[in-house]
């Protein structure tokens, strides 16, 4: 039996990607020349009979805070396009090529400039000989003779998660995308529905100034705006192991595009309506000292609420 994601999951994922990759585009940080260290637990180099099955996993050792690979963050997997005529709403190039399953499509390839690996002499290593695990911040290769010593990468400063329970495992700033409820009603004679989902974005910042920046950025990113509803025919951008979907089978980035085809069952885009924003002031908690209270995860909170509206054909 074939199984396809329901519309609500596609909407949730589309909004998640829009918030993380478009609205919070300015909140991308650079970590330079970070040492890469072989992780013996994750590596397998013992199969001399068939060396092609061997795999070497290098982890980036950084003391940057917040941790670039904490929940909801990770390394940046798309190149942004600057200095072109692209709409600021779509800062990623869309090119022709194929999906990982060989179907021709238009989409966005894996990044080429956001993660750079260097050898011990700081010469750039070609990205054809390694894969990037964007979730856990690792470089994966099957070449035991490859010298990979440092990595420079861009990472998402704001953690974007879709479950409340995950907030604690990420350090602030965190944004939680929370779809609360759904209403469906007719909007015309015949087929088609108007689907309205109540969505809250909960902001957990590390200071009052950061809260202001995030609140305003998110509000402006939603007010009078819309985002595409992607179809995700092969799933999300990244595979289960954090690598770009399809990269394991073929290093040619034009044959493993992230499919940017919009869902055909809705008219136009997902629209953001009735956008409101407010700070969330909570009563004081007890502590031994003031510093503990100010560093509490709930100390600088805010909330952006909106209706996610779509009109379906069927």
């Amino acid at each position, binding site marked *: 039996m074939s199984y396809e994601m329901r519309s609500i999951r596609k909407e949730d994922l589309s909004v998640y990607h829009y918030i993380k990759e478009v609205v919070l585009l300015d909140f991308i940080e650079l970590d330079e020349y970070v040492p890469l260290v072989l992780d013996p637990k994750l590596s397998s180099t013992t199969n001399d009979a068939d060396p092609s099955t061997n795999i070497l996993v290098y982890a980036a050792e950084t003391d940057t805070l917040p941790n670039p690979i904490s929940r909801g963050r990770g390394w940046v997997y798309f190149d942004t396009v600057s200095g072109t005529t692209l709409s600021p709403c779509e800062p990623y190039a869309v090119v022709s090529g194929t999906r990982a399953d060989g179907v021709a499509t238009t989409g966005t390839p894996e990044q080429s400039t956001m993660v750079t690996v260097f050898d011990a002499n700081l010469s750039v290593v070609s990205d054809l000989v390694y894969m990037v695990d964007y979730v856990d911040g690792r470089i994966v290769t099957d070449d035991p003779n490859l010298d990979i010593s440092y990595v420079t990468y861009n990472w998402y400063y704001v953690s974007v998660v879709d479950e*409340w329970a995950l*907030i*604690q495992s990420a350090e602030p700033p*965190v944004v939680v995308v929370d779809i609360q*409820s759904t209403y469906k009603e007719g909007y015309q004679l015949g087929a088609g529905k108007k689907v309205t989902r109540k969505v809250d974005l909960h902001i957990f910042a590390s200071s009052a100034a950061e809260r202001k920046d995030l609140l305003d950025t998110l509000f402006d990113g939603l007010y009078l705006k819309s985002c595409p509803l992607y179809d995700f025919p092969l799933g999300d951008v990244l595979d289960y192991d954090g690598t770009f979907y399809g990269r394991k089978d073929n290093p040619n980035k034009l044959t493993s595009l992230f499919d940017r085809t919009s869902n055909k069952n809705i008219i136009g885009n997902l629209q953001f309506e009735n956008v409101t924003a407010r700070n969330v002031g909570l009563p004081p*908690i007890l502590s031994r000292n003031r510093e*503990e209270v100010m560093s509490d995860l709930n100390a600088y909170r805010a909330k952006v609420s909106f209706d996610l509206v779509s009109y379906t054909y069927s």
Partner: protein
Amino acid sequence: MNPLAYGERFLRLLKRKLIQTFEEDVVPEVKKAVMDNYDSLLMNKVPEGSLGRPEDFRDLFVERLDEYPFVKTDNLIVKLSVPDNDTFDFGEGLSFLKHVMEGMAGFYYLIPIETYRLLGYTPPSLRETLYLVREDDPLMDDVRNILGETFLTPYAFSNSPPMDVFEDVRKQASQRVADAVKKAVSLAKNDFRRLY
């Protein structure tokens, strides 16, 4: 009589009828919707005998809801105000509920004000009986020394998303307002005919 004076009288009559209809028809329904949400979202979630049971705050919550100024007037304007987490009075005894309704990320313990005093600290407010302390706060070491691990009460709504009892109440109220206005206009017209 000057026709404008009739108009003025009608508007004043309409204002009175709007206030009356809102108070008699809409406000009770709004209160009922809030309390239905309270009961379904918060009741029977915490074991009997534990600290921080929403059941223990229900009466005070109802009292505050009754005190809430649902109908506000400004000259000839009548406004129906529906409470939310910002406008409802959570002060003096209900701040615990505010944490529940806004949700709390992370894990917390509940500490009675008497325990906090026993530790030699001054509480931020004397009006609250219960406070939250983060599980990894150094204060918890002092609390453990006094209470012992067995008597610590974990906050039952730790790491829980908001349980907002005002959610959707505004929408329900706005659906009732149109009918209430029609009724108020009709009552005002009848009275106006009768009086003038």
